[in-house]
Every structure is written in structure tokens, then in C-alpha cells.
């Protein structure tokens, strides 16, 4: 029983690690409500997948400070910390 449990826990942590690495960071999953994932969609809102990490970070900083004109992104950018923006940008940069 003890061995089975230990094996099961081992399996669980491996599985968790596998999933966690693909897991989008907090907030990232919500972006695709407006930013299309699919190239089928025609939208003035840019796809985020594969964009340069630094470019996403700069855009979010400029939206937050008001340096870049926005409709809703100024209001949304104010809800994220620098660390969260870095993590989201890093994740999108690796997406296809």
C-alpha cells in the first residue's frame, strides 16, 4: 500500500509538472476573448501568439501610463503588475 501510494504521488507530481509548464500564467487565458487565437478571424485587435515579449511588455506599460491611445486596454493594463505582465508576455511569445 505504502509503495503504491508513493508511486502514485510520484506520478502525480510528474503529471503536475508537465501540465504546469504548459499552463498560461494568471490572466493570460482571458486575453483571447478579444485577441484572436485563430488566423481565421478578421479583427483590428492583434493576435498575441508569437509576438515579441518586450513588445508586449512595452505596449502594456504604455497603455497603463496613458502614453499609448486605447479604448479598453488602458483600463485592463491597470489591473496587472509588472511581474504579471512579464509572465504573460513571456508565455505569449512562446505560443504559435
Amino acid at each position, binding site marked *: 500500500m505504502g509503495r503504491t501510494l508513493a508511486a502514485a504521488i510520484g506520478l502525480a507530481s510528474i503529471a503536475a509538472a508537465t501540465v504546469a509548464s504548459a499552463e498560461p500564467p494568471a490572466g493570460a487565458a482571458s486575453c483571447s476573448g478579444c485577441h484572436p487565437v*485563430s488566423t481565421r478571424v478578421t479583427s*483590428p485587435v492583434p493576435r498575441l501568439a508569437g509576438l515579441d515579449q518586450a513588445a508586449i511588455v512595452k505596449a502594456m506599460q504604455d497603455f497603463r501610463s496613458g502614453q499609448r491611445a486605447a479604448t479598453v486596454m488602458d483600463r485592463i493594463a*491597470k489591473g496587472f503588475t509588472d511581474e504579471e505582465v512579464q509572465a504573460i508576455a513571456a508565455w505569449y511569445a512562446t505560443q504559435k
Partner: protein
Amino acid sequence: MKASRREFLKLGVAASTALLPLPALAQGAAPRVVVVGGGFAGASCARALRQADGRIAVTLVEANATFTACPFSNAVIGGLRELSAQQFTYDRVAADGIVVARAMATAVDAQSVTLADGARLPYDRLVLAPGIDIRWDALPGYDEAAAAQMPHAWRAGEQTLLLRRQLEAMDDGGLVVISAPANPFRCPPGPYERASLIAHYLKTKKPKSKLMILDAKDAFSKQRLFQAAWAELYPGLLEWVPLSKGGAVTSVDAATRTLMTDFGRHQAKVANVIPPQKAGRIADVAGVADGTGWCPIDPVTFESKLQPRIHVIGDAAIAGAMPKSAFAANSQAKTCAAAVAQLLTGATPSAPKLINTCYSLVAPDYGISVAGVYQPSASGQLAEVPGSGGVSPAGAPRATRAAEALLAEAWFRTITDETFG
């Protein structure tokens, strides 16, 4: 001796399982997740579960072959759009490897969901996304028969078309009345967008007509923006009667299309009664709805506070500061899917951040929006991140409003593609 030893072992295994429930994936079996309800919440969640972990066997239970979207259905009522532009099938959802069970879920227990034909779907985790039901007992005179005379059009489809046909059949000079409910209800700015687009129709086609909103509230979503736009676009045509001025409808008479308030009675040529609502029926059946009729949830995992291993997302959930919108439903669906995928491996989901963005059309080329960012608060609710969010700026130029109208349409294309495309 042998038998008793076996009994002892069985008991021992049962006891340790009860103390330390192993996640389905750790037990080596393909975990089964059943999602009930194929709207923006349920269909998005089913897809996000498959994307999060391809080992999860996902079944989506939905009674209808076609989904009819509520966002932009006010444009159908106002004659600006056809209902077919609101409709989506589940073909692409099924193509993702999701089993789509086209049936009504009739019962839920701790292990399985029962369908109308008696079939049982066992689950490791269950996600309920039933949307809303109308409270047919909440407004005297307003039952399902009355809705054929005074449509609610708050679940899109035939009701949407009925309200549109009634407006088209009305003679110029008629009175249209919209009754708006108290909070909470699906789509907080919805009644006011609807009033705007009906006003646009009347101004264009039947300019001697009047529109009155009888409201059970003294304040509403995007209120200053709506009221400024109404004064600019529909002066003298549209009147909003708040609670404090006698706006709360206390009963209706469907035969004469009359709406009663404490202050008087209003006989309408066309009456749109948006009645009080509650979580869709299966939430009550599953025991996840509380005395309010809605479903309390954990803000990290969306797991019910009333039933373990059952999650509730979308309009049916009590999601704190998050409004009951399609965007919120989609955002919650993806958050919940990630949490469920982690729970199935035995991992602990970390605190999420969610977004809502909600556009309303005041006229075809005049859009306004509200946006917010949300996180779990110390009190265990989803709360708005301080300093974030808000509505479109007051006094913005018409070019900004036109841009937001285009962004509203782009949003609809994007979210329906992610959910159904």
C-alpha cells in the same frame, strides 16, 4: 479467515481512499469531466479542458443542436442583423475530440449525470454551465403563456424574433415598454442596449412612437454613457423611469399588454418584460444553488461551495464583482478548465486573474464599453483589482464611439470563433 482478511483489506483500502482520495490521473485512468451546458461558458470550458490536458475525456451535454448567442441579439430585435448570424453548431467542438451528448441532463449525483433517456455519464469532475432560467413565479401575471404576448427575449432564439415581429407590426405612434429587473441578472447593460436599438428602430421607421423603460433599480451599468447618448440621439423618444419614480413593475396583464407599478399602469402596444432570473434548472437539481437561486463558488477553482467536485461557471455562478456576461463566462471557463486539469493531477491551482470586457451598442455606429480585471479577495470572492477597469470616457468624440462599435463586432467574431469555430 480468508474472507474476513479480504473484508479487512477491502475496508482498509476504502478507508485510505476516503482519507487520501487519489486524483484520477494518479490512479492511471483517463479522467472523465462532464460539462453540462453548451453556451459561452460550457463550450469554452470543454475546449479548454482538452487543450489543457489531452488525456482528459470530456463530454459536453447540451440539449440543442444549435446555440443562439445573446450578445448582439438586441441588434436582431432592432432589425440590424439576422438571427442566423447569432447561431452556431457544435461540429467544431466535437472535432476537438469532445463527446457532444445532445440531451437534457435531468439528474446529478456525486458520481454521475443522468440524461433524459436514462443514460448515466460518470464523472471525476463535473462542470455546470446552465446559464439562466426565468423565475416564472416572481412577477404576478408573467408565466410562460404570457411570454408569448409579452416576450422576454432574454434567452435568444424564437423570443428574439417574436419581439422583432411585434415591433415591425406596430403602427407608428405606439408605446413600447421595457421592464428591467432588479440585480442580479444576465447582462447588466443589456436592457439599456436593447432600449437604445429599439429607439434607433423607432426613430428610423416609426418616429411618432415612444419607448419607456420601467426599471426596478435606481442605477444601472454604463448609466451616464447611455443617458448622455440617449439625450443626443433619441431626445423625447426614450424615457427611463427608475425605481424611485415608480419604475418597479409589480404585475402584468398579458391579454391587454398592461404593466402595473405602485404608481400606476402602462398599457403598451409592445411590451418586453425582462423578468427576474435564477441559475439554470440543473443547478438546483444538483444542489449547487443557494437560497438566492444562484451558485456560490470558490474564486480560484469555481468549485461549488455546496457540493464537492462540481464546478459552476458563467451566468449561474455567484462570481462576486464579475458581471454575468459572455466575456466573463468565457474567461471563467478557461480559468476553471485549468484548475480542473490541475486538480485531476493532484496539483493545487494558483490564484487566477480574470478579465471582463463588455460592449454595448447605443446605435449601429455608436459603441460604449465597460472593462474590469478580477482576482480572488481575502473574503473569498472575486473582486475588482483596485485602480483597474471602468467605462468608456464621457464626452469622447463620435470617432471613438464608432471605433468601439467596430471593436464590439470584432469581439463577437473572436469569442464565437474561440468557443464554437
